[in-house]
């Protein structure tokens, strides 16, 4: 069979002997209920969690070809359903009784997944925590924070008020929030896009050669810390805020011979550190932009 034929067929989601498993969890009593479900997978699974209630979602990895979902729900006023189709696992919570209060609407999930897994997680207020997973991730939270540790892939995080802490992550990262802040620590990211309207941004890490780093806050602080080995072109602008350059001795005129000028309406800081391999763009409408070298 030609490779191209195999590839065409693989564009259709394979259902290889797994079928569809539908299992609503309906409790017989009002006490918190804990249920554990095991799903055998063949390739790189896709795990989708839609938690309309409140609660945490924690994801860790292991070397087995199995996804284990452990759910704890506070009452029978919230229902949780799971469904498996091939290597895709869907976990959905729904409110069955609209008189439920915040405590009764709580559903927490712990997942153990193969190291290479694609995640699509959505919750309201609880923390989303992911550790040591490689794969594309779309993580949505309203008020809950998102903590990522040693993850790798194309990571898209969207919150309304929740903050992001991303430690030792690799790949591409996009973060968008209204009031949440972002901290990116010890990264190996080659493409970073951080956007927040009123939150703060801290990027403390290395800039990969040919990487693109764009960080923007409306009112908050945008702080970048770099090391002596870093090499990047800097373009920083603010409309009514301030620029705090604590790295003047390391910042030279643009090494590519490009002459920058901020508009007469904004304040800017332009220059090159090292050979200017990466590209760093910082912007804050009315907050402070700070750049400094890590000791």
């Amino acid at each position, binding site marked *: 069979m030609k490779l191209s034929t195999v590839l065409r067929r693989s*564009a259709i989601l394979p259902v290889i002997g797994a079928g569809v498993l539908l299992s609503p969890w309906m409790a017989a009593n009002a006490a918190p209920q804990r249920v554990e479900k095991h799903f055998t997978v063949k390739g790189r699974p896709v795990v989708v969690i839609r938690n309309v209630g409140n609660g945490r979602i924690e994801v860790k990895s292991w070397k087995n070809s199995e996804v284990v979902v452990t759910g704890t729900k506070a009452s029978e006023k919230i229902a949780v359903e799971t469904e498996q189709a091939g290597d895709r696992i869907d976990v959905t919570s729904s409110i069955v009784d609209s008189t439920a209060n915040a405590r009764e609407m709580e559903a927490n999930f712990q997942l153990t997944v193969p190291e290479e897994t694609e995640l699509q997680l959505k919750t309201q*207020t609880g923390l989303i925590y992911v550790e040591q997973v490689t794969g594309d991730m779309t993580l949505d939270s309203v*008020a809950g924070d998102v903590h990522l540790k040693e993850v790798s892939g194309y990571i898209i995080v969207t919150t309304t008020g929740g903050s992001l802490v991303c430690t030792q992550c690799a790949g591409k990262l996009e973060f968008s929030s209204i009031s949440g802040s972002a901290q990116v620590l010890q990264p190996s990211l080659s493409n970073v896009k951080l956007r927040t309207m009123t939150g703060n941004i801290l990027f403390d890490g290395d800039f990969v050669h040919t990487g693109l780093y764009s960080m923007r806050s409306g009112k908050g602080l945008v702080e970048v810390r770099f090391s002596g080995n870093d090499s990047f072109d800097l373009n920083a602008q603010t*409309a009514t805020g301030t620029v705090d350059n604590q790295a003047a001795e390391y910042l030279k005129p643009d090494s590519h011979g490009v002459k920058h000028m901020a508009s007469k309406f904004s304040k800017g800081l332009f220059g090159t550190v090292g050979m200017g391999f990466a590209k760093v763009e910082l912007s804050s409408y009315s907050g402070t932009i700070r750049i400094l070298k890590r000791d």
Partner: protein
Amino acid sequence: MQCRELEVFFEEEGLAPLSAAARQHLSECHACKHFFDDVTGIVALAHQLPAELDPPEHIWISIRNELVREGTIHGLSGDRLPWWQSFAELFRNRSLATAAVAVVMIVVAFLLGSKPREQVLQVQEDPYASTVTALSQQEHDLANMQLASTGENSAVDASLRQNLEQVNEFIADCERRVRAEPSDELAREYLTNAYQQKAQLLSAMMDRGGSLN
């Protein structure tokens, strides 16, 4: 078979199936074997990349609106709508509200980009007017909608409302700046993005109200 001939073979025939001569050469030449293993691995990995991906819904909305505006599409709600009236239809489906504002952004950007410089000051009041109207209408609809009535569950709703207030404050700040300095492109860029974020937030609030009720 020499290495050069193997390379020509790969170029003309691909990696599979291998001829007997190619197989023989690979069993004898470590360098070519390395190359073959590496490239076969790369191709296998490439096959795992999804050939189809879901595009955001707003792309279709934008395409459709543009085609309606041009008159390429007919048969939409009976009569052909002028483009600015299509927003009223979009807002009936609250989840398309964000896309509607996005289209306004495109039109705004086009208007601002195409006007001669000396006319920019005159149109500054106009480009955002329809956006502001659309967002105000959406906020009004949201206020009328019955949100989740339970006690503490409104922790989420309180967070959403608080964020909406912050967005409105920020927008007001940017609007003041743009009125005072119409040529401040950075301020206009922030204002445009803020409108878009507000539209997305309002959509999320309306969707949440629907799912809980």
